[in-house]
């Protein structure tokens, strides 16, 4: 057979194919870009590899036991397929994985379970329910040594050995190619409602959200959309002011009780409104998938995680530079859209460091930018030298020949 070219997608049919392909790459000194459906290939640093290791043919749910709250599936299984299966048993992935499709200019529903875990997806429920990492129970994978291994288990409580399923979440295929994953699933709430507060500035909204999520009333989503950005979300387009949204989920009597209590708690902040279940679901999906910034794919987009009460200072700096933002996770997650393709990395990382003081203020990831920018800039939050060296040693252990998506996260890793 002729050796592959850069354009080749090597489509593994099973784990043995993955092992063979990686062993071949090691033997020939080739590099592989680890991919599922390819829906998130535009995330991370821009890299060029000799070929793509395509895992999209590794599909199928291998185990789903609703009463055990456990699901296993091959890495290439579509998230949408898994979600449909879960809905039929009134369950869900509680971490509410976002769909990067709209933001990256691709169709919805392309993402795979392997990609979900490799990028540690989360959604508005993150502060209370965790991210993908918090629901990772077990995995099978092939490391850059061309060896298949497993880690974790298929039960919801397990501390046997190092927590590799969590440790490999968010590794963007740079340490191992997942072949099968086991996750914890949970019952889905019966219904939902959203309480709205109109007209708050960002700093006041942070206080209102803090009061709401710090209350007894189980707020499962808290977002603030400044005026202007509201225009890009159908449910909020006619608000005429900023909107702060608080989601309540559960059984109807509980939601009613909690809404009334929250209305009393927050009455002093501003005018209150309410969205019923259907429009609530649309709103939270729009926020989860960053639909407000899905319109112009030429503009740079950042995802910043910080302490909720520090977020408005970052938002102010962004606004001054002509950018727009909105806040999820009660302020702890800021989605930023720059006015053009220039990501203004120094501004974003500078203000993040400034709000952090002596500690780190959080992390800023450049999510959307053209390939040249993503090749030249640190896309992920830069590591301090000691942690950077540690990460290189981890790569040495798992992928000493630098075969698996080298450079996707950090140069030399």
């Amino acid at each position, binding site marked *: 057979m002729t050796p592959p070219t850069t354009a080749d997608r090597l489509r593994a049919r099973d784990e043995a194919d993955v092992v063979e392909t990686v062993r*071949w790459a090691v033997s020939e000194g080739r590099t592989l870009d680890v991919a599922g459906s390819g829906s998130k290939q535009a995330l991370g640093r821009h890299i060029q590899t000799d070929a793509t290791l395509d895992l999209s043919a590794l599909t199928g749910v291998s185990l789903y036991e609703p009463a055990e709250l456990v699901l296993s599936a091959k890495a290439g299984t579509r998230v949408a397929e898994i979600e449909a299966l879960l809905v039929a048993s009134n369950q869900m992935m509680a971490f509410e994985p976002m769909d990067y499709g709209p933001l990256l200019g691709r169709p919805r529903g392309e993402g795979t379970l392997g990609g979900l875990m490799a990028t540690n997806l989360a959604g508005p429920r993150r502060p209370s329910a965790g991210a993908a990492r918090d629901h990772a129970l077990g995995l099978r994978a092939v490391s850059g040594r061309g060896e298949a291994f497993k880690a974790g288990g298929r039960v919801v409580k397990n501390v046997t050995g190092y927590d590799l399923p969590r440790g490999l979440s968010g590794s963007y295929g740079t340490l191992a190619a997942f072949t099968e994953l086991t996750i914890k699933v949970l019952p889905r709430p019966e219904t939902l409602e959203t309480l709205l507060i109109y007209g708050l500035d960002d700093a006041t909204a942070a206080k209102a959200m803090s009061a709401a999520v710090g209350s007894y009333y189980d707020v499962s989503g808290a977002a603030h959309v400044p005026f202007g950005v509201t225009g890009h979300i159908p449910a909020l387009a006619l608000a005429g002011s900023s909107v702060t949204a608080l989601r309540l989920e559960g059984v109807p009597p509980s939601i009613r009780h909690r809404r009334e209590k929250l209305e009393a708690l927050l009455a002093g902040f501003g005018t209150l409104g309410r969205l019923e279940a259907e429009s609530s679901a649309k709103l939270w999906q729009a926020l989860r998938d960053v639909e407000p910034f899905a319109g112009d794919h030429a503009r740079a987009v950042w995802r910043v995680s910080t302490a909720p009460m520090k977020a408005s200072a970052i938002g102010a700096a962004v606004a001054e530079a002509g950018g727009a933002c909105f806040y999820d996770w009660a302020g702890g997650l800021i989605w930023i859209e720059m006015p053009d393709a220039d990501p203004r990395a120094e501004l974003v990382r500078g203000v993040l460091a400034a709000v952090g003081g002596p500690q780190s203020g959080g992390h800023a990831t450049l999510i959307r930018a053209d390939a040249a920018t993503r090749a030249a800039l640190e896309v992920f939050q830069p590591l301090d030298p000691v942690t950077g060296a540690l990460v290189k040693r981890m790569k040495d252990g798992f992928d000493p*020949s630098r075969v698996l998506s080298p450079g996707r996260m950090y140069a030399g890793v």
Partner: protein
Amino acid sequence: MSQPEGSAAHAAGDVEYHALVMPEPKRDVLARRAAIIADLRAIVPGEGVIDTEIEMRPYESDGLTAYKQLPLAVVLPSNTTQVSKVLAYCHANGVRVVPRGAGTSLSGGALPLEDAILLGMGKFNAILDIDFDNRTVTAQPGVTNLGITNAVVHNGFYYAPDPSSQIACTIGGNVAENSGGVHCLKYGLTTNNVMGVEMVLITGEVIRLGGQYLDSGGLDLLGLIVGSEGLLGVVTEVTVRILKKPETARAVLVGFPSSEAAGECVASIIAAGIIPGGMEMMDKLAIEAAEAFVKVGYPLDVEALLIVELDGPEAEVNHLIGRVSEIASGLGCMTLRASTSEEERMAFWAGRKAAFPAVGRISPDYYCMDGTIPRKALPRVLSGMIDMSAKYGLACANVFHAGDGNLHPLILYDANKPGELERAEAFGRDILLLCVEVGGVLTGEHGVGVEKRDLMPSMFDETDLAHQQRLKCAFDADGLLNPGKMFPQLHRCAELGRMHISRGQVPFPDIPRF
């Protein structure tokens, strides 16, 4: 057993017992003991270094009391700089280090080694920051688990993971062991509640992972550190998320004629979409021991007792109490009581929370196990335990975190009767192997430590274990941090790093290309 060493196995009667083998002490380190202690005193002055046998005695064991060993010396640093200097010194001089929090580990995670310093973190006992607006607490690792809740409870907040040792165990130890508790089905283990750490590597280098914000934004090193049992570094600061205490909590106490029926009730509650704050099961022996101890009115004519606690907003709790009661009644429960007051709820829990000491009253010693199983395998595992009980001639009481399938069999034995400890250990080993056989795992929350170390191959093959150990190599290439724990065999990092694929030897795989 007090000085585990020597032959790998010896036979007693018809049962084979395996003695614990710890890494061979480094002779050169033992020979340099006086000089090493003097050097450490220069870093941690005054009473920070303990070297007399009588003063080191309290540190010879942790919560797994069957194993005892005096360390080379006990070092009690009081700040990060001292930890850094001590570790850098040990790294430069090839001295092994065993970190220790409060020493409540039930798996021997803090068991000293003859040639290792025991690094006690007890002086790190300050809470550094309480931030109600961002809902975080930052504490030094020696602060107790309950100490964190106590610091925020005046504002109605708490720290969710609640291991039964929470009055004594430290948050640093919780990070090392990824501790759980009765509420973790709903609120998660330590790993789901820790947001950041400051940590010292064996080289003495200090790193910060995470902080007052969520997720890592890159590789999840924090996720690896939590539950690493003191093998990767020494944590010197921990940031955790705190939650608002639920507005209401009510519990239902349900008695069943069989463990199977109780197990079915648990499955039905979850299938109905209800995740209780806590869901605990006790078997007949545990019920009897607990009732004799605390006299809270547990029914004594049932085979299995469930405590199901619902917490949250009042309207929701009352609604769900009704649904859980309906489910239990539909499955033929013998008794059913829903708490109507806080006193009554606490009484339901009093027996469960006192189950371990209660068993301690009816037996001179007990050995607490910690496997997790898929819940549907409960009948098989329980009947297996009845057979093992007959085989080893030892009784076994069962308490069970029923919601997440985490079993705590308590094996009753008398250490003063020759051979009983060995029988108890063999019984425990058989239980854990059965847990793995039915699709479960060796440990749900107590950790591997030395206790389950040699059983790791029942869950993981050599390649699996080699990948775990390569992580260890990235953090601690010389294997100085807590050796002899977690892994049955110590491989040299050079050996683990070797690649066995040669250039040009592997043909291109015959797979589809596009």
